[in-house]
């Protein structure tokens, strides 16, 4: 404090400056004091502050002392000229230390075996703040670990309630699968009704696990299954490596972000026992031809536009949950991972003369949702999945360490032919905008009927969450949108549905920046890493000899020998799929009966779906009018009307179950008419029966 007091008041009142620990600092465009302190070179600790998300002020670690105002959190305080800020005082250090101590007291400290131990921010803070003892007793009751998801594991015993996952899911992805529940000492971060994270609307993007500072949300590990296959002499393990993995894995070994290490990955995998090492980018080239051909056909006929890309499994699940009536706009192409799985399993079985059951396809992905995708029932052949196991970049790094390999000194090896050969377009899939750019390099050239410089489509590159470009192809205009982050994607789709925007092609990716920033990549913070990885992808594209998927000679050969032509019958069988509406609520039946109004003697039972999509299409009014109609006819004792959730025909809603029959695209008039007829029949039947009884008596 004495330092700050010694500064002449004339300096303090100078416009646009303030004092931090005795140093004069100029206020720039920083949104809050925390950003200013950090830009002044002070690495202020925080849990809950992320520049992309809203300010929350929960972790209390970024506290500072403001002269005349006392202790405040710097993330929630705007910098003002003349402020005198202390960051490093005995009192502040003591408070920060107690805060961390308290967090440790309610934290399940099994650090050595925790999946996050190498990147745990709590552990880092304990070391940085010099916390050496925990004087508080821990909470007794342990909560069960949620393993319901194929992609994620939620361990509530390690949650520090920073709310990062809640905000990333809500603000960045627009899903809101997690939120705070209960109160006081019982507060927890939970999916709705405490259901498993795999049973709710979670799309498996894993951004919650990437942002989680502790081991409360982690990626489900499939490492053991992969080792088992690698050690099994009866198995032939063929590996595919996604484009983004090669520009991310170096960071796990302390190398610079964005550097390419595909050679080291190949060498490591071969030493670990993999038989064939291929490239997902080959399958990405294949995707370009299939998806591009599909797009050209739709574009020519002007139907099912805009065409959405379908490479991102988190986006696909969101579309199935939220936009069932737009599923036909999704490209029917499987993702490169799944194209690779079905095709290579078949081709390798042919080549090696082994049963396809002996071929084990291993995917190395930057993505957690790919684990979910590989387990989708439509991506299996003869009861066995086309892709047998998916591990993330981080899991691969862990396996390399477990195999006692020194990644940095590995002699780079090459990928195997022919499925290790790719064009630059295939590599582009790793960055947001890459799929659109790759498809344009193919479809654009065909539409323009001339050779095009690949650089013409660089306009779809960038870091903004939504980008658009109108591309002139010799008189034909192609309107393209690229969106990353599912909240932005939902805003864009809502614009398209409302007719405010019109596009021909939309690329949608869940993770900000695309696959390079997938939740399976080494943990990262800040934009610099994102840019470095993106540049790494673009550099790879530039360095490869071919930039267009259609130029890939091994792909041409594959079409000649196996697939005939893009969109052929066999291509459809192996490379395409279909989507189905998916209920958001998991196995959650609705039952509005309160036990008082049950009409047990009802002759007609009507259930009206009030799920999201039927609701949007007016099931709410339908239900309302129907109840009025029944009341008007005083038929309440004969008819039992109840709302229900989801018959999984969301694209054909509103759906109504009339007795045992499920009706689609219902209107009130239709249901009311049907009900009237039913009641009439009932009345006449009753009349005859009454007549009969009368006759008998």
């Amino acid at each position: 404090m004495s330092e700050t007091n010694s500064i002449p008041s004339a300096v303090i009142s100078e416009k646009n400056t303030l004092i931090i620990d005795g140093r004069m600092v100029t206020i720039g465009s920083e949104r809050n004091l925390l950003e200013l302190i950090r830009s002044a070179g002070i690495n202020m600790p925080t849990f809950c502050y992320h520049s992309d998300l809203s300010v929350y002020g929960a972790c209390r670690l970024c506290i500072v002392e403001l002269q005349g105002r006392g202790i405040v959190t710097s993330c929630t305080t705007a910098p003002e000229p003349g402020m005198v800020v202390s960051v490093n005082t005995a009192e502040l250090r003591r408070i920060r230390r107690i805060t961390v101590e308290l967090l440790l007291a309610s934290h399940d400290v099994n650090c050595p075996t925790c999946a996050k131990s190498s990147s745990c921010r709590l552990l880092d803070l304990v070391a940085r703040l010099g916390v050496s003892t925990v004087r508080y007793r821990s909470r007794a009751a342990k909560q069960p670990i949620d393993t319901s998801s194929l992609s994620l594991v939620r361990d509530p015993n390690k949650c520090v309630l920073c709310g990062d996952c809640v905000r990333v899911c809500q603000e960045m992805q627009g899903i809101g699968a997690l939120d705070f529940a209960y109160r006081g000492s019982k507060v927890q971060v939970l999916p709705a009704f405490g259901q498993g994270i795999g049973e709710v609307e979670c799309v498996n993007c894993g951004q919650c696990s990437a942002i989680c500072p502790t081991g409360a949300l982690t990626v489900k590990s499939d490492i053991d299954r992969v080792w088992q296959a690698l050690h099994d002499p009866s198995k032939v393990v063929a590996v595919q490596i996604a484009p983004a993995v090669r520009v991310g894995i170096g960071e796990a070994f302390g190398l610079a972000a964005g550097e390419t290490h595909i050679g080291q990955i190949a060498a490591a995998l071969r030493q670990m026992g993999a038989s064939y090492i291929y490239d997902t980018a080959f399958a990405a080239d294949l995707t370009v031809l299939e998806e591009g051909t599909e797009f050209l056909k739709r574009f020519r006929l002007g139907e099912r536009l805009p065409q959405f890309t379908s490479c991102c499994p988190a986006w696909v699940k969101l579309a199935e949950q939220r936009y069932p009536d737009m599923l036909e706009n999704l490209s029917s192409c499987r993702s490169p991972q799944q194209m690779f799985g079905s095709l290579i399993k078949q081709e390798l079985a042919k080549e090696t003369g082994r049963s396809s059951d002996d071929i084990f396809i291993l995917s190395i992905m930057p993505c957690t949702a790919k684990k979910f995708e590989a387990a989708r029932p439509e991506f299996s052949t003869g009861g066995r999945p086309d892709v047998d196991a998916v591990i993330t970049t981080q899991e691969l790094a862990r396996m390399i360490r477990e195999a006692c390999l020194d990644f940095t000194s590995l002699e780079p090896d090459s990928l195997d032919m022919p499925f290790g050969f790719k064009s630059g377009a295939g590599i582009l899939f790793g960055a947001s905008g890459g799929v659109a750019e790759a498809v344009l390099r193919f479809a654009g050239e065909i539409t323009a009927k001339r050779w095009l410089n690949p650089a013409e489509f660089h306009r779809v590159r960038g870091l903004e969450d939504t980008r658009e470009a109108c591309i002139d192809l010799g008189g034909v205009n192609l309107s393209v949108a690229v969106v990353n982050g599912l909240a932005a994607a939902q805003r864009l789709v809502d614009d398209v549905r409302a007719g405010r925007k019109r596009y021909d092609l939309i690329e949608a990716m869940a993770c900000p920046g695309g696959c390079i920033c997938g939740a399976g990549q080494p943990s990262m913070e800040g934009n610099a890493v994102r840019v470095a990885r993106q540049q790494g992808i673009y550099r790879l594209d530039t360095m490869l000899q071919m930039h267009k998927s259609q130029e890939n000679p091994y792909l041409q050969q594959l079409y000649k020998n196996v697939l005939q032509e893009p969109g052929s019958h066999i291509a459809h069988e192996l490379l395409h799929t279909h989507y189905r509406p998916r209920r958001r609520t998991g196995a959650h039946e609705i039952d509005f009966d309160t036990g008082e109004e049950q009409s047990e003697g009802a002759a007609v039972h009507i259930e009206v779906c009030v799920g999201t999509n039927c609701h949007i299409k007016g099931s709410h009014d339908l239900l309302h009018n129907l109840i009025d109609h029944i009341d008007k006819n005083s038929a309440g004792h004969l008819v039992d009307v109840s709302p229900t959730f989801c018959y999984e025909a969301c694209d054909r809603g509103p759906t109504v179950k009339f007795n045992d029959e499920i009706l689609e695209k219902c209107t009130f008039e239709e249901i009311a008419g049907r009900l009237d007829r039913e009641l009439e029949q009932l009345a006449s039947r009753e009349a005859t029966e009454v007549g009969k009884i009368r006759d008998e008596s």
Partner: protein
Amino acid sequence: MNEILDSFNNDPYRLIAILQSVQEEYRYLPEPVLSYIATNLGLPRARVFGVATFYAHFSLQPKGKYVVRICDGTACHVNRSQSLLDLMDERFKLNDNKPTTDDMLFTLEKVSCLGACGLAPVVVINDRVYGQVNVDKLGAVLDEILEDEERRR
């Protein structure tokens, strides 16, 4: 349900008021009802669940026909409110872990201060307030309710 939502214009900012009205209707907040509210208001289900579990006023469990609120605030506590809680445990096996009888007749709620400390210990059964309650008095009230219920059957 729809009437309640309509009366609040399906406004997500009025979630708490909507939950209050719905609970009045159903006596508790069933999960499917919360899902339905979330869908109608365009809110994530986890958010609605979070709000419903934050406030002690909201219950996600069905409550019995008679809600017995026993005050365990300071004044009632020193006037032996614990003996009343013990009575509920003895007679109906009701406690913190099991608040409602299997026949859905009684729900026990331990509350902190009903604002009638001069009458301590205080018990409120549904909307009726009983002051200076002891074990015998509470026992008699409960007997009365049981007899009443028996007669109705």
